[in-house]
């Protein structure tokens, strides 16, 4: 079984307002096709860890490997490319570009990657929207759809470049149980059918229990 993401002895400190050791010696691996959830009390450092894993935060100690390649110490531009091609990120709050249509939002990372023609990208985007059952929203402005719909658009966008791994920071945090269930099913399906790796931070115990593995954190350490 190949490793998609590996963290080796990751430490992080916040220097302001006081020196604060927020992540303590975090090491773990995520395999291809694995659906992993992270749980832990509020403030234990889950989001902080996820920002590091997603390469947006580079201010840490330790090593990070993506597809067995060291990405710690890469330049910002290299990291941007890695985020673009290999990592899909779903936020707790549905971050969409509100002035663009749903379809444009989904297409944007692929256009940035520039590996496919416009037509191919559009087809891909429509297909992702179909997987998430929201193809009828394609031409709507992103600001004119419901929260649950936005969350699914964000997932479609995370999928557009067929990334190695999807990371989510409480992606079901402000969804009702029905929509939350829905998102879980989509994730499950993607990991089973497409061999996609997932790393999802959640407070929802029911959600976590249904995943392949739960990483539990406390005070900046992995305890299980």
């Amino acid at each position, binding site marked *: 079984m190949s490793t998609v993401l590996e963290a080796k002895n990751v430490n992080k400190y916040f220097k302001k307002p006081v020196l604060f050791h927020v992540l303590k010696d975090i090491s773990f691996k995520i395999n291809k096709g694995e659906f992993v959830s992270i749980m832990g009390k509020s403030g234990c450092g889950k989001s902080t860890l996820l920002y590091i894993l997603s390469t*947006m935060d580079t201010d840490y100690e330790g090593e990070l490997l993506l597809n067995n390649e060291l990405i710690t110490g890469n330049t910002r531009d290299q990291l941007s*490319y890695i985020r673009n091609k290999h990592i899909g990120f779903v936020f707790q709050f549905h971050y969409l570009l509100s002035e663009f249509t749903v379809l444009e939002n989904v297409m944007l990372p692929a256009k*940035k990657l*520039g590996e496919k023609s416009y037509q191919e990208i559009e087809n891909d985007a429509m297909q992702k929207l179909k997987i998430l059952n929201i193809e009828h929203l394609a031409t709507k402005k992103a600001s004119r759809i419901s929260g649950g719909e936005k969350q699914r658009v964000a997932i479609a966008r995370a999928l557009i*470049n067929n990334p190695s791994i999807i990371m989510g920071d409480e992606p079901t945090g402000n969804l009702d149980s029905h929509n939350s269930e829905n998102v879980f099913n989509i994730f499950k399906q993607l990991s089973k059918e497409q061999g996609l790796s997932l790393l999802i931070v959640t407070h929802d115990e029911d959600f976590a229990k249904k995943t392949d593995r739960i990483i539990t954190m406390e005070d900046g350490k992995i305890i299980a």
Partner: protein
Amino acid sequence: MVNWKVILNIAKTHLLTKIKQTAIAALGVTFGIGAYITLVSFMTGLNTMLDDLILNQTPHIHIYNEIEPSKNQPISLYDEFKNSMNVVHSIKPKLSQKKIHNALPIINYLEENEQVRGALPQIKATIFYIAGSIEIGGNLLGVNILDEAKLFNLNDYIVKGSPEALFNTENGILLGIGIAEKMALDVGDRIQISTITGEVFPLKIVGLYQSGIADIDAMQSFSNLKTVQRILGEAENYVTDINVKLYNIENALPLSKKIEQQFKLKAVDINTANAQFETGTNIRNLITYAVSITLLVVAGFGIYNILNMFIYEKMNDIAILKATGFSGKDVQLIFMSQAMIIGFIGGVLGLLIGLIFTNIISTIPFQTQALPRIKTYPINFNPWFYFIGILFAMVSTFFAGYLPSRKAKKIDPVTIIRGQ
């Protein structure tokens, strides 16, 4: 690799959803550039007009015989006083010195020079205009009128009559308009002139001359070279001045120096003669650029402000773009292109406004005694100004956009995402 299509598309969408602010920012540039075009076209039009007023009529090199006392007085030739100190009182210049010796060979020689467009002989004669009992001092210029018309745009200053009329009339005179007014004379009338030696000649007025400089117009008239030679009782090779026009005014100084040395004559170049005259031009240019740059700086601050506001409002978008793989440079380019689009559209509109304004101004009647040939306000329609104008717009918006866009580049997406 920069994907311009995506970046410009995002920039365009941002601008279109904030069309009002975009329009305001662009209008700032439009006013700046419009004012620049209008001002610079008008001011340089004015400059050219004023320059022409002097330059057209002024020879690039004026060659004449300075009347000055000889440096060598007869006593210095006398050997016996060689070692003593001689004091000579009341030295007078020699009388016959006004004439340029060998003027015609010199003219031929000059005309062969590649830098010279033409060398024209003139005779300056001091005379009196007589009408009835009135006698007014003045000077009569004997010229090759057709050549003068060609090289020194004399046509422009002949307000009545024509150079040809003078050329074809044996005893004709182009009378200065100031004299004509004083003496209530007009074309077709006769005027008597007398030389300093007292001889009186009748001349027929074939035209009126107005230089725009009142002092000159009240003194100076033109006649044919031959006529003046006859009036003065001089031979056909009698010439007092040679006016040289060059292809390039820059050669005036070196050539005049050369002529002085070679022919032992006085040769004054135009820049030495009109040194003060550049100053006015420079000051007008200074005003034009100071005003335009001020307006553009104000417009630049407008763009800076609006772009800063855009970026502040688009923090979330910036964080999303960065999280999904757009680099800091991409984000910077998005906002830079917004600034440049504003600058370009505003600039082009400014050029248009400038073009319209200057066209309107150029039809407004403007008549003044001093400038007989000017009928409307002078405008210089120079394509260069439009090129500089758009360059100006682009450069100022570039600077206005640079700082805010750099801020956008540096925004840390994690901070924004945490802030939610």
